[in-house]
């Protein structure tokens, strides 16, 4: 019996367990399976059993400390079992699109423009945050396998990324985030209020770290962008804000939706593949969020709309 046969059988009986049901298009004709052997449910179980035994005989691929080489390839280091940390610092003179990072330092004491922050902003107490996840569905089964944070320091904007190289690294990732969060920090994200933060909160609760992010002040620049530019921009995606407000065009960017697949490939094969591009994409998202803040802080607001 071959595995393909088993898969075909299960697929015929019900929607495949690995996919969402796709209704067949109208008018599609009946496809009857070819003649051949088939199995009852019990038989199916017996065959599943064979698959398992075969699986046990076949040695699982073993990678000699893959994290070490992966960490090196990504320019970082393994900081805990299953967790790689990558640190990059961009000097204040660095221009992200048309915006020098220096402008971020200049929002000191600001609360204006589209940000409408309740308190004067201390740019050194902002923690920019962005995640890459295994999916957009949310719920307990979605994991943030990569977390990037950025903070303004005297040297420039310091980007810190934690990549889970195994599920065992998740607790360490959450603990790194807790350590990176200063007492009075304000989180800054793009769409984090409805996505990244609830997701991280879920992960924290699953590991008994309730309240890691609860009650944190949080500036979600998506909301500020909507307030200022809803009528002027075709949409309020980060990509649109980058081209229209930052004059940035990303070169060779790996689209975010490919990130989960790249990470799954890593888990399955132990090959780094395009993980470096996933990290670069995440860094770009962080930089754009950081560059967008001073731009939105400068918007003169009148009747809820930016005036140019």
């Amino acid at each position: 019996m071959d595995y393909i046969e088993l898969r075909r059988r299960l697929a015929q009986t019900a929607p495949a367990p690995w996919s969402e049901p796709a209704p067949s298009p109208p008018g599609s004709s009946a496809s009857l399976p070819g003649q051949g052997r088939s199995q009852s449910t019990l038989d199916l179980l017996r065959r599943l059993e064979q698959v398992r035994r075969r699986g046990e005989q076949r040695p699982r691929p073993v990678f000699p400390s893959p994290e070490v080489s992966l960490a090196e390839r990504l320019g970082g280091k393994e900081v805990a079992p299953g967790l790689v940390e990558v640190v990059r610092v961009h000097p204040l003179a660095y221009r992200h699109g048309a915006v020098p990072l220096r402008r971020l330092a200049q929002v000191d004491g600001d609360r204006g423009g589209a940000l409408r922050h309740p308190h004067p902003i201390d740019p050194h107490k902002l923690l920019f945050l962005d995640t890459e996840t295994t999916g957009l569905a949310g719920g307990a089964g979605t994991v943030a396998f990569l977390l990037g944070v950025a903070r303004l320091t005297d040297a420039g904007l310091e980007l810190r990324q934690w990549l889970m190289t195994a599920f065992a690294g998740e607790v360490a990732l959450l603990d790194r985030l807790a350590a990176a969060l200063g007492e009075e920090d304000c989180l800054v994200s793009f769409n984090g209020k409805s996505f990244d933060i609830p997701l991280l909160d879920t992960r924290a609760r699953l590991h008994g770290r309730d309240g890691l992010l609860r009650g944190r002040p949080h500036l979600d620049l998506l909301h500020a962008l909507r307030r200022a530019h809803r009528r002027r921009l075709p949409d309020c995606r980060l990509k649109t804000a980058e081209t229209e407000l930052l004059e940035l065009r990303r070169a060779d960017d790996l689209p975010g939706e490919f990130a989960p697949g790249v990470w799954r490939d890593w888990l399955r094969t132990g090959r780094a593949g395009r993980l470096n591009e996933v990290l670069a994409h995440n860094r770009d998202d962080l930089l754009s969020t950081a560059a967008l803040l001073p731009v939105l802080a400068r918007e003169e607001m009148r009747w809820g709309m930016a005036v140019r």
Partner: protein
Amino acid sequence: MEAWSRPELDLLGEADADPRRAGDTAALAAALKRKYPARIVAEFTQPARPARTAPLPAGLDPRIAAALAGRGIRRLYSHQALALELALAGRHVVVATPTASGKSLCYHLPVLQGLLADGARALYLFPTKALAQDQVAELLELNKAGGLGARAMTFDGDTPADARKAVREQGDIVVSNPDMLHQGILPHHPRWASFFETLRYVVIDELHGYRGVFGSHMANVIRRLKRISRFYGREPQFILCSATIANPKELAEALIGAPVEAVTESGAPQGPRTVLVWNPPVVNPDLNLRASARSQTARLARLAVKAGLSTIVFANARLTVEVLTKYLKDVFDRDPRRPARVAAYRGGYLPGERREKEKRMRAGNLDCVVTTSALELGVDIGALDVCLLNGYPGSIAATWQRLGRAGRRNKPSLGVLVAGSDLLDQFLARHPDFLFGASPEHARIDPDQLLILMDHLRCAAFELPFRAGEVFGPHSLQTLLGYLEEHGVLHREGDSWHWIADSYPAHAVSLRSVADGNFTVIDVTDGKQDILGEVDYGAAALTLYEGAIYLHQARPWQVERLDWTGRKAFVTRTRADYYTDAIDTTRLKVLDSFQQDRGAAATCAHGEVHVVRRVAGYKKIRYYSHENVGYGNVNLPDQEMHTTALWWSLDEAALERAFASRQAALDGFLGAAHALHHVAALASMSELRDLGRAVGDGTAGWSAVQDAGGRGSLRTLEGAALDPDAQRFRPTLTLYDNYPGGMGLAAPLFDQRSDLVARAHDLVADCPCQSGCPACVGPVLGEAERFGLTAKQAALALLAMLAGGHQSNSEANPHGLH
């Protein structure tokens, strides 16, 4: 069939039978019996039963006792007291007592006690949203009466997003349904952490509804719930309530996977109840055709309403509900300026519309409600006097549940079962003792059905990684997880399996049916875009094809366009004087046979089959006259399924000896299939729809369907006619398990194969009709004989061949045609 029954024909003599004293069910019953002794084939009375009560237990929180006193309750019914005692002793409890015996106090009391004593929280699960709303109302009244401060909150699809957080964090009693638990709560359990950490009681009402596929899914949802509760350090206690079924304890234990104490003796009082079995009069003795149940039911409903009795009418199909409502509205709601006295209530209406109707029923502002099984469950609609069943509901348990709708609160009540023309109904009309004497059905589930289990295994893995040594059902967990791992859904790391797919598996699993996605019906008349209702996936192909008349509150709309992938049907208002009925064909192919019994001419076997169902067209049927006024074609995707089945096939040579033509043999097959299908449903204690039937050639080359006259014709799946004499001819009669992968019905039926054939033969032979009728071989019209045989004779000949002998053929073939 129904073409003979015209409303103008005064079958009931309405004017005469009108009882003098308004609001008296006994008077109505007496009038019916006096006037129509021949139509009443059985009468059954249940005497009034006094209450048996017990004092409130000493340990009950005085605030709860005060709340009960505030609602006039100073003693409990004996079953309530026992259930409370068992629950407080930490046992899982199932309460199975009749409709309206005060079951809900059996769980409200321990839940409130736990809440007041140490803040324990509870989850209430009702199979429908309507029921949930109702129980919250009752709980709130108790709460108010005693100032208990319990916060009962509903969490379902109608709960607005901004209110959900409050429910999670503040709800002492969260009222929800299985689908919401499955798709909305368990996959998001970390948000519900504080709830799960303090969860003590899980209440499952309407337990009897969790049968078959739905129940098997539910048992797996409970496995997930228990698994998540353990993660938060809790082992919740279950309190379940059921209407009367044969095996409440067994079902409860299968559902929650733990021993359960059963409370089955009701201490509630009950008013006297009279139940009549009503068989419509024969209007055509040659064809054994009776007046339609529908027109008789409409008559009885008119009588009851005119007598000032509040009346509920149950019908088995949505279409019948709409047609009956129209008939009654034509009488009682002619003046549109007056508030309606008659209303339809069924699934598919929007929630607000249903709530409004429930309210009007409770307030007594409606005289008559026509419904499907939607009101069989415990929605509180207040006291009703008369319950009419248009046709046997398909099970004894459902019959009593429906009859229990009338006669609440100690009032005498009248129930009438109006027998339909089909086989089971006529069987019951001939053997009413079956209804009144027999035990109600056993409810069965198969929580370990592999496909269902795999569905929930994915959901469970999404919710929490699996660790080695965990148990989830009886199969080797490691094997099943390994299978999901090989498909890239799970990733194994050391001794745990993590979900890594980019999907939300609960969305792909529907607890109620195989395929997911309700269809939205959108009214686009005059350029508007109003949502009119919803139709579930299973019914969509049969009711929403382009050209179909969609009835909503007895008013017709026509389906203009069906967007199958988008799950939308666009309809416009029409004045059509007809309704539509779908024609569907089933093609079936045997994949594998597990066991065979080869007789002289017939072979019976069971195994696996591939089933393709297609709606090929529809008929237009005029109101009242039931004339067929046209046909239309339908182009819809096929419904495909791989399942288990049992089948009989006959040797071609033997068939040729027994039947003068292949056509006659086909008639025999179709008639035998009709009888066997019904007999098998009874034998397996399942509902008719749980089994499918098909007559074909076993390799999906052709299938036989009944033509407009009820006689057999060969069709390709595309609906094109074939000449039976030009085909390879090895017909196969198949009964299949109507669920992908099978729910285990086929193998036991195979073991009873001789019995099934014998009983089907008796059933057809004993039927008083002359040449075949819906009560034996299915609806047959037109020529009484074809090729020398009536449809009935052909079916008997065929059943005799299936029974194994050739010699009996001559018996059933008086013409001796060879």
